């Protein structure tokens, strides 16, 4: 997925960029509306994350102006009051909005929901063993049967699918699965890995425990 982030707060932008890159997305960053226009002229994007208050104008005005020729879904990043902003942002053609400060897991969940709602334009299915994994739809198809994954199972499988054969530490997986303020121990990961294992059982793909280091997904074999 290719994202465009329009956000003038340097620290926040860096953090979002880092997090989205970690999830395997390509992200371009614009610090103002004029920069955003330059990026939009040169490349196509799957999703735009747009701040409301930018140095050279209001993100909502920009959205209202460019909605006519802009097909890309937009999520507004706002630090303003919910009531007054919801009306503005959604009326101007935003697909969703998220209030600052936000949890990255929530941002990611909202990106996923918007992309899924906008439908299959950028659907990319991944082959996992003998199964076909659709991260956007959150489904796993095997032998004519489609399994719908729960949110955390889906996110866990996504990380594994992106790094096949690599050892992933429990901390890395925790980052993906839980909100940052959630008071969970690393044991919780074992529960979700266990559930995911049951889901993919018999699909020619398995998750191995690497003692003391973490987990690794292997395709092929029994």
């Amino acid at each position, binding site marked *: 997925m290719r994202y465009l982030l329009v956000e003038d707060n340097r620290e926040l932008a860096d*953090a979002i960029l880092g997090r989205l890159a970690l999830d395997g997305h390509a992200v371009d960053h614009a610090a103002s509306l004029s920069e955003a226009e330059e990026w939009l002229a040169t490349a196509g994007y799957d999703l735009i994350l747009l701040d409301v208050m930018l140095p050279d104008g209001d993100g909502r005005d920009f959205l209202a102006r460019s909605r006519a020729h802009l097909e890309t879904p937009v999520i507004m990043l706002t630090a303003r009051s*919910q009531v007054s902003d919801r009306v503005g942002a959604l009326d101007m053609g935003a697909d969703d909005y998220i209030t600052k*400060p*936000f949890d990255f897991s929530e941002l990611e969940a*909202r990106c*996923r929901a918007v992309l899924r709602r906008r439908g299959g334009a950028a659907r990319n299915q991944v082959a996992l063993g003998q199964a076909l994994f659709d991260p956007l739809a959150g489904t796993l198809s095997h032998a004519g049967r489609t399994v719908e994954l729960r*949110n955390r199972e889906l996110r866990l499988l996504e990380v594994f699918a992106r790094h096949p054969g690599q050892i992933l530490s429990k901390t890395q997986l925790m980052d993906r699965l839980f909100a*940052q*303020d959630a008071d969970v121990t690393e044991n919780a990961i074992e529960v979700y890995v266990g559930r995911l294992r049951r889901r993919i059982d018999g699909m020619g793909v398995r998750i191995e425990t690497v003692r003391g280091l973490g987990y690794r997904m292997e395709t092929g074999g029994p």
Partner: protein
Amino acid sequence: MNTWSIGRRLTLLLAGVAALLSVLSWGMVTSLAQQAAERTQDNVLAASATTIAETLRSEQGEVRLELPYSAFSMLGAIGQDRVFYRVTAGAELLTGYEDLPPPSAALTPGAVTFDTGSYRDEEIRMASLTRLVLAGPGPVPVTVSVAQTRSGVARISAELSRTAALFSVAFFVVAVGLSAFAARASLRPLNEIAAAVSRRGPSDLRPLRRAAPAELVPLMSSLNRLMDRLGQSIRRSEDFIAEAAHRVRTPLATVRTQAEIALRTVRDETEKQRLRGIIRAVDESSRSAGQLLDHATVAFRAEDLSRDPVDLAELAAQTVAALEPTAAMKDIRLRLEAERAMVRGDAVLLDNALRNVLDNAIKYSPEDTTVVLRIERNGREARLTVRDEGPGLGDGPVEALTERFRRGTNTGGIVGSGLGLTIARDVLQAHGGHLHLATAEGGQGTCVTLALPLS
């Protein structure tokens, strides 16, 4: 300034003028009728006197006359007045009542003179006529006087005057009605403007654009200027609320981001706990700031509530879609069981109320559970029930939970401002509904009911 109604003032003024005109016209008609009656009597008296005078002739040096019947029958036309007459030749009485008062003025032959006097205690009108009759040595002046009492004339005048008075009263009544109508008609543009203003929605501050009589143009333009200023001040306060939120939340977002980055790099579990504590505190303050501002906005909008038709099922579907990602993070399913329920109100506020209730349900629900949102019509009420599988409401007094900054006794370490339910309650009360809190049957989970009158 006089606060009397302009309509009443105008009506009274016009009615006063009508009353004056009525009295004047009645007076005029009465006096004309009187004159006409008198002139008629005079004419008849003169005709009667002339008829008698025409029968005068001289016979053997004597003046003779015949009293023709017609001379008196014509007088009978005027009611039952009594008739007196006298004919004198020089100083000698020929016939009639001798004591009838003599004509006041010297008589010229052939001319009729009239007198008003009193005879036998009655007012009379008398016509007198002198003719020279050749009898004996020379012409003798013969005077014919015919008199009649005036009660008949008075009755006719009184009758005419009464009729005139009736007409005047009728005229006055019609004039008053027309005055009221005219007052209302001339005030109609004013009422139309008032209606156009009061028909407007609370947030409709567009200038009035309607054709108005010249007298109302200054009022319209001051009204438009006032609405313009009001709109500006509302926009300013909304901008202020938005700006305040922005100022508070942007640095909080930076702190949170930094803490998250640090959380990813440190390995020590105690340090991690500290960083999570920071993130929780940031979330709490940003939530409180957001809800305080929402609360202010809700209070502001609820004061002048718009009453648009809203389908609760449709609204709930949208709110659920918006909160689905938040719920998915905890693997919580949101199930919506809704039937169509139309209410009247402010969709933004209703969404905010539902969002606060649903947000609570998601926040307090254990992972991997279901939150059920059900909309039912119950009599004249639409009931929106949100039921979770969380820990319930604890032991404290249930209704106190909607008080500002009041939180339950079993909220544990969950971030909250204590304003969510207050906002929801305020929104419902502004719509004439109410919020009901209960621990679900079986003691497991909370059941929040938002009740609204159906439209």
